């Protein structure tokens, strides 16, 4: 038990949430972060899907890492990820159809998400299954965390709601307030991600040096 939650393992899990965040520091997975965050709900679902897939694909690859021939490892990694993505996509269609329609191709495109391939290549190929699992979940949650922030800002300012509940009162609209249409466009998502990176870097100045 002690070994399972040793200091190193904690670091493996916590680093991607903050100082080694895949979006903020490694600048990976930006495209999907821009595409699915115009509202909060798809952002959450997308974040969770990626978390589950990174976690389990890391475990599977880590388990078979010694038997994978080096020259075809990328293909094998892709097969594993594709299988998991297909399962997640089917689950979404079965239990959360509306959201899966909103996410459309982006669930399928998780296969090409740079975070996944990066973690498989850089971590799961060299570490045991438990560490790999923690690493995958940590990176997935780090990704989901940013998606939620961006999705919340965009939905609140772009549609005046969160998770579909109207938050901005009608009286404000009557007084001339109106929703910011640009927030629903991907361009604004890029700027918000930029702002989050800005805040993150100024909070972590010491660690960067």
């Amino acid at each position, binding site marked *: 038990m002690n070994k399972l939650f040793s200091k190193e393992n904690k670091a493996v899990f916590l680093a991607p949430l903050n100082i080694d965040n895949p979006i903020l520091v490694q600048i990976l997975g930006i495209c999907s972060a821009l595409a699915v965050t115009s509202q909060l709900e798809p952002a959450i679902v997308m974040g969770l899907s990626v978390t589950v897939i990174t976690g389990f694909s890391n475990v599977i690859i880590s388990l078979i890492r010694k038997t994978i021939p080096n020259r075809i490892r990328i293909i094998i990694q892709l097969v594993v990820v594709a299988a998991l993505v297909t399962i997640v996509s089917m689950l979404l269609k079965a239990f959360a159809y509306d959201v899966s329609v909103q996410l459309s191709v982006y669930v399928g495109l998780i296969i090409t998400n740079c975070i996944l391939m990066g973690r498989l290549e850089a971590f799961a190929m060299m570490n045991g299954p438990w560490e790999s699992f923690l690493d995958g979940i940590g990176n997935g949650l780090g990704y989901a965390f940013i998606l939620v922030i961006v999705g919340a800002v965009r939905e609140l300012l772009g549609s005046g709601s969160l998770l579909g509940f109207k938050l901005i009162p009608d009286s404000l609209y009557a007084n*001339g*307030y*109106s929703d*910011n*249409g*640009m*927030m629903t*466009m991907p*361009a604004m998502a890029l*700027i918000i991600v930029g702002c989050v990176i800005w805040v993150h870097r100024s909070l972590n100045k010491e660690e960067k040096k």
Partner: protein
Amino acid sequence: MIKKFFDKIRPNFEAGGKWHSLHSLFEGMESFLLVPNRTSAVGVSVHDAIDSKRIMSFVVIALLPALLFGMYNVGYQHYRAAGLDGTFLELFGYGFLAVLPKIIVSYVVGLGIEFAVAQWKGEEIQEGYLVTGLLVPLIVPVSCPLWMLALAVAFSVIFVKEIFGGTGMNIFNPAIVARAFLFFSYPNQMSGENVWVSKESILGLGKDLPDTFTMATPLGTASAGHYVAPPLDDMIIGLMPGSIGETSVIAIAIGAVILLWTRIASWRTMVSVFVGGALTAALFHSLGATPLMWYEHLFLGGFCFGAVFMATDPVTSARTEQGKYIYGFLIGVVAILVRVANPGYPEGMMLAILLMNALAPLIDYCFVQRNISKRAKRAAHK
């Protein structure tokens, strides 16, 4: 006298003085009102008689005719829509009161951010906002709410200017970005038929109009497929609905003369914008794609204003002399192309200038490389 006053209060702002935290505000006001008395302390630098603050002042002077006429036109459109007769002073006064808050908001927000950033970074205040602050109110419709204007100004100053390192470092023209931000964020308040005439009475001038009153710009009607040509003299004088400062060809021409005479704007850029626009418009007209004659395309909408005050911005335009021809020409072409080919956007000047701002460094790069290889060849021949 002003100098004495500044000398007297200066100790308060120097390190240790009681208002030290406001020192950048002090320096900004001082060098705005007086010619700066410091010369650069390090390195060799050539000082011209006219520094960048004076350049900015000349641009502001060049903008004044368009601004004053814009104010009159705001009043004129309102009184005509209301069916009232007003004296010249009433019309102008109404427009003045309608436009003034926008200018104040634009300057307060923009300069506030600039001062805050200068203070935070410990730099001198940068004066670039002087022009932008006046351009922004001139390129929005008169009914644009003040809070939107404030938001757009804040957005463009922070994300287009300060992030790139402040005045002189930006790749996009901040005033255009402010307008683009408004255009994409709040399309209902920035285009269409509902926004071009002020609808409220101000301090007893004019009268309230019903919300349902609409008035389309000539380009708006052209885009909707039922072009109504305004009389040619209205077109040139500028008595037609449109963004505050963009309507009058004459007022803009006065500004253009000032800019060219003081050599602040490049005639190469200006002329090639008009040539590009005219040729493209003539081509489309002869193909039957647009009901407007080529000169109508140039006189209507923001074409003149953009060509004179926006495209020639020395920071964001191409810097090589031949590059300016290409840069200007393509602005004219793209502006007309957007107007004619995209039914969703009646006006293309804003998008054209933004696009070419982004391409200007590339144009420069090509010409610089060409010159380098030319010279290399010449050297090889010797």
